[in-house]
């Protein structure tokens, strides 16, 4: 587990201990240890197939993944006792690598239902369609989005960049405590990356943590992380600060993987 690199004295939001998880009988996560405090930004990196995305999906409750060992506490409570929609209402948000298309359902209707559901769970006011329209248009400005997209079906026919913007917009609307962003940078050109990263940065707050799952260091040029973790073979093998990402950019992952294999356990920073 990584020691604190920066003085973020927020309370612990997420605590992952010895987490193992499998999909279709194959164990992907083999003992993840992670602590995330309010106000922090963590980047999770690692080679293909290492378990980065799996970790995000398991935390959000994807039904295809079975947790086989370990525990996760979110704000002190057992996360696995909650259904996926309850986790979302409790303040966990998953930004999808491949957002699902929902033909026939307008973005406006979908976003409002999501917003009102989460608001109701928090005991906060729900918005009628007109109020919500004002609210959502305001948030869309953060991401430089065309209001016309409200009338389009959810993600249907969206470009890669539009889908990712839509994910971040949903985050901006739902205002989660913990945002897990799964390869939000994949499929984005440099301009779109800047816009999306700008949207994420505006969401940084003292009471919110953000976990970025990413392949590339370039995202971290725009969203500066407090911690960088490297997952390999289903474990976090290295934790450092943003300089670790730069080092990975230079040296690749192999040196870490060899080191981890030799030691047979996570490598301390």
């Amino acid at each position, binding site marked *: 587990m990584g020691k604190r690199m920066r003085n973020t004295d927020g309370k612990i939001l997420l605590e992952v201990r010895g987490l193992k998880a499998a999909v279709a009988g194959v164990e992907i996560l083999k003992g993840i240890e992670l602590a995330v405090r309010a106000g922090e930004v963590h980047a999770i990196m690692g080679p293909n197939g290492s378990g980065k995305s799996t970790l995000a999906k398991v935390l959000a*409750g994807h039904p295809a993944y079975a947790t086989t060992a370990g525990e996760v506490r979110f704000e002190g409570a057992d996360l696995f006792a909650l259904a*996926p929609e309850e986790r979302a209402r409790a303040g966990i948000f*998953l930004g999808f690598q491949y957002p*699902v298309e929902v033909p*026939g359902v307008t973005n406006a209707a979908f976003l409002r239902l999501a917003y009102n*559901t989460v608001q109701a769970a928090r005991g906060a006011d729900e918005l009628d369609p007109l109020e919500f329209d004002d609210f959502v248009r305001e948030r869309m400005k953060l991401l430089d989005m065309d209001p016309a997209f409200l009338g389009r079906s959810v993600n249907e026919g969206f470009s890669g960049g539009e889908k990712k913007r839509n994910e971040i917009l949903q985050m901006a609307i739902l205002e989660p405590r913990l945002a897990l962003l799964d390869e939000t940078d994949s499929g984005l050109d440099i301009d779109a990356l800047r816009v999306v990263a700008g949207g994420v940065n505006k969401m940084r707050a003292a009471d919110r943590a953000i976990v970025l799952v990413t392949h590339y260091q370039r995202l971290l040029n725009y969203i500066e992380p407090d911690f960088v973790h490297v997952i390999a073979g289903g474990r976090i093998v290295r934790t450092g600060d943003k300089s670790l990402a730069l080092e990975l950019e230079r040296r690749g992952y192999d040196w870490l993987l060899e080191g981890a294999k030799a030691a047979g356990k996570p490598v301390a920073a």
Partner: protein
Amino acid sequence: MSSTALQNLIEQPYKHGFVTEIEADVAPRGLSEDTIRLISQKKDEPEWLLEFRLKAFRHWLTMAEPRWPNVRYPEIDFQAISYYSAPKPKKKLASMDEVDPELRRTFEKLGVPLHEQKALAGVAVDVIFDSVSVTTTYKKRLAEAGVIFCSISEAVRDHPELVRRYLGSVVPHGDNFYAALNSAVFTDGSFCFIPKGVRCPMELSTYFRINTQESGQFERTLIVAEEGAHVSYLEGCTAPQFDTNQLHAAVVELVALDDAEIKYSTVQNWYAGDKDGKGGIYNFVTKRGLCKGRNSKISWTQVETGSAITWKYPSCVLLGENSIGEFYSVALTNHHQQADTGTKMIHVGRNTRSRIISKGISAGQSNNSYRGLVKIGPKAAGARNFSQCDSMLIGDACGAHTFPYIQVQNDSAIVEHEATTSKIGEDQLFYFASRGIATEDAVSMIINGFVKEVFTQLPMEFAVEATKLLGLKLEGSVG
């Protein structure tokens, strides 16, 4: 979201399952020329109508049940069915107050809008309870406009020349096995006539309800819109829960003359059998509209959610130049329901246009087939058709099939066909869940989105009802 939860979601029992205890006047089982003479005699019919029936019956005897639909069911014993059933009226009814209180309570349970408030909503309701029309409301207002809206029995009595001219003119007595059977034994139905230049002042609505166990239902509907006339007709169906299969073979004929427009909307929720596939209604219906005049238009909109078996192809024969045929359909099947439904667009005249939007939803172990024919005749120069057939699957045990037939005999025609298949799957539901939205709400939202294009074609009030109906069928306790 597990498949069990999905299963629970779609296993809502039929809410309208109750039997009204009313003395019924039921004919003995079996079918022969004598049965037909009995029906005709009970209804005090003129000789020509008896002849029409007998001709149809003799033709029917030479025909075989169609075997091509993609549905499976045990052999029907047509001699085991009673072909006539009528609630025994205590006396002739002069007003609503005289309607059997038991019957009125049934209508109230179903929400059949017979009472005065309905006038405010602008709907005249011709209620058919089993085979005999009990009462017809708002006749006066319609009469002032010159619109005839009554049971077909009344029409035979009061407007024999109109019925005789148009009955069987769109669906001939020997058209198909079930249409022939219907022509032989139909007991009642609705008749609607909109004279030249009249726009019907209200939406016409008929509620059908099958009540007597094992009584075959053979409704006959005839709607005629003269030159420049407009009418919107609504048909809604619910039925009580029974174990024995009930045969229903209706015939609906529409005739639109020059510049006339007929919009026919159906919401069908007959008993579909229990979740093991036991019971339920066999719905073998022939619906056809004839765009006889130039610039005429016939539009079918159907929401099919009930019946154990649905065999139904509301069609348009586009005879008049520039005439338009439309078909908008949502067919939902669940448990062991089987539906083989679609449309036929027969382009005969020049510059005729048709549009087909079909949305099939399959859940449980059900089977849902779209079967459509687009036929462009040799003289249909400039004809155009657009077809869109979308299927949605819920769960892994159901089936969706599309059988589009296209026959083009004129080079200048343009025919387009598009089809998609989608599935409410784990990933879609997880996406909603990760935004805090429960499975039930997600399914409801996805389904409503899927059928939107069709539902916008329904009259407002019906659209609300239909949305509730789909909700009823697909929402429920999430496991």
